[in-house]
């Protein structure tokens, strides 16, 4: 079924020089294992294609069912140099949660109320 990522995960983002990071925390291990296969660097790069000028790099934190994405060159320069309204990538976490995904039926039960 089609849902937004926000229905199965939380996210937080911030700046790292000229890059930003988006950390995403899944509701439980079943959803995390599925997300690890689905939410690739390529898919996230495509989602942020107007925002990320460089690559997307992904790290996995199996212990807390979380993925961490580094968005290379995504702030229009460093935090203090950027002309963007969101110069520090504070909103990119919420932007990732807007992604529409095709959630397998067996994971439907884990959707937020």
């Amino acid at each position: 079924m089609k849902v937004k990522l926000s229905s199965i995960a939380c996210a937080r983002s911030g700046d790292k020089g000229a890059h930003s990071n988006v950390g995403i925390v899944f509701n439980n291990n079943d959803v995390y294992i599925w997300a690890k296969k689905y939410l690739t660097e390529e898919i996230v790069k495509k989602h942020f294609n107007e925002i990320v000028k460089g690559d997307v790099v992904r790290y996995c934190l199996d212990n807390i069912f979380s993925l961490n994405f580094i968005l290379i060159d995504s702030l229009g320069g460093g935090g203090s140099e950027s002309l963007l309204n969101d110069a520090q990538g504070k909103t990119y976490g919420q932007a990732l949660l807007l992604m529409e995904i095709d959630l397998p039926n067996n994971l439907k039960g884990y959707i937020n109320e």
Partner: protein
Amino acid sequence: MRKTKIANGQGFWGDSIQAPIDLITSADINYLTLDYLAEITLSIMQKQKNKNNLFGYARDFLDLINISGKLLKENKIKLITNAGGVNPFECSKALKKILVSQNINLNIGYIEGDDIYDKLDLLIKQGADLCNMDTGENIEKIRGRICSANVYIDSYEIKKALDNEADIVLAGRVTDPGLTLGPLLHEFDWKKNDYNKLASGTLAGHIIECGAQCTGGNYSKWYNVDDFINIGYPIVEVSENGNFNIIKTDNTGGLINKDTICEQILYEMGNPKKYISPDVCVDFTSFSLIDNGDNNVSISNVKGYKPTDTYKVSISYFNGYKSSGQLTISGPNALEKAKKTAEIIWGRLSNAGCSYSEKNTEFLGYNSCQRSINLKYSGSNEIVLRLSVRDDDFKKVERFGKEISPVITSGPPGITGFAGGRPKPQEVIAYWPALISKNLITTNSKIL
């Protein structure tokens, strides 16, 4: 097993002025940490110090002690802060004056050695290359434009100050998690090679360093947070073996659960297997986390490794000017009118012979943050137009500020929101991260 409680009441310069007062007044804690510094803050403080060498620190902190110094003493809470900025010595003298005037007897420990602004020539001569660790560029490129230079020093000077019976520790550029690790080193006498314990203390500090951002602030499931108005700031209760719980005071709002803590753990994270601090390298994929319910999360078995032999240096430098102006455009076809308005302003600037090294046009209320991601726009009755420029030429950036308001009477209808006056050029302070060999840096702590 012995335990100690450490709270954070200030996540950045500009955070709640009430939070530290509330913690001092009613929280059951042993230590209070307050973070006032960001990369950009030190350049502002250095500028203040250049004008008057009695300044260059966070004066908000003095206001806090003026109000709460007496209670701090009565409640036997020790306070660790980086409010000393680029002038911890003058900050401690000003602080002492306040304490003496109120007859409060507290020892102040201040830490020096992180500020290398005046020693750059010497350090470069001694072999520090200070090339940009992201781009590899040579420091000579910005040498004449440097505004501040500070080393992220390790947490042992905080321990030493507390060992010497400081009640308030005033540091400059220590790491943010170090404000928490420092008192743990003092309390439990952890050794330099107790890597797992150092990693645990660093993670505890990382979780609370942004104040309420781990107690429900900025939480994706914000609709589950009770009472944002009275949000509680975080407390870590740390055991001698390094394991810890994140809690808050009972009568406060906010929320601590697995998600609020995990979100904050991931904040500003790079490679989670290699979180490098001057004290230890932390593996953020190593620990176990348990949500105990009732605003209580425990973390155990954090793994750490030997630290690197370099410190990170935070250098800021002047890099031209920028300016931003906003107008609110309302009524029928607001977005189309906003686009036309932008076209008019840029056209007039071009007629005036002004081109810029960077220009930016944004439509707030339409797509300024998330561009076309999942954009389902059905038209809104108002849009905020935000225009920005950047250039090395002050005059051109100043000229930009004069071209915003004329369009109110010489463009499309329904434009307002120009109460703030002409936007003025602001200096762009850019950031230059570098590494320096630890044996080139000497730090010390003294008691006043």
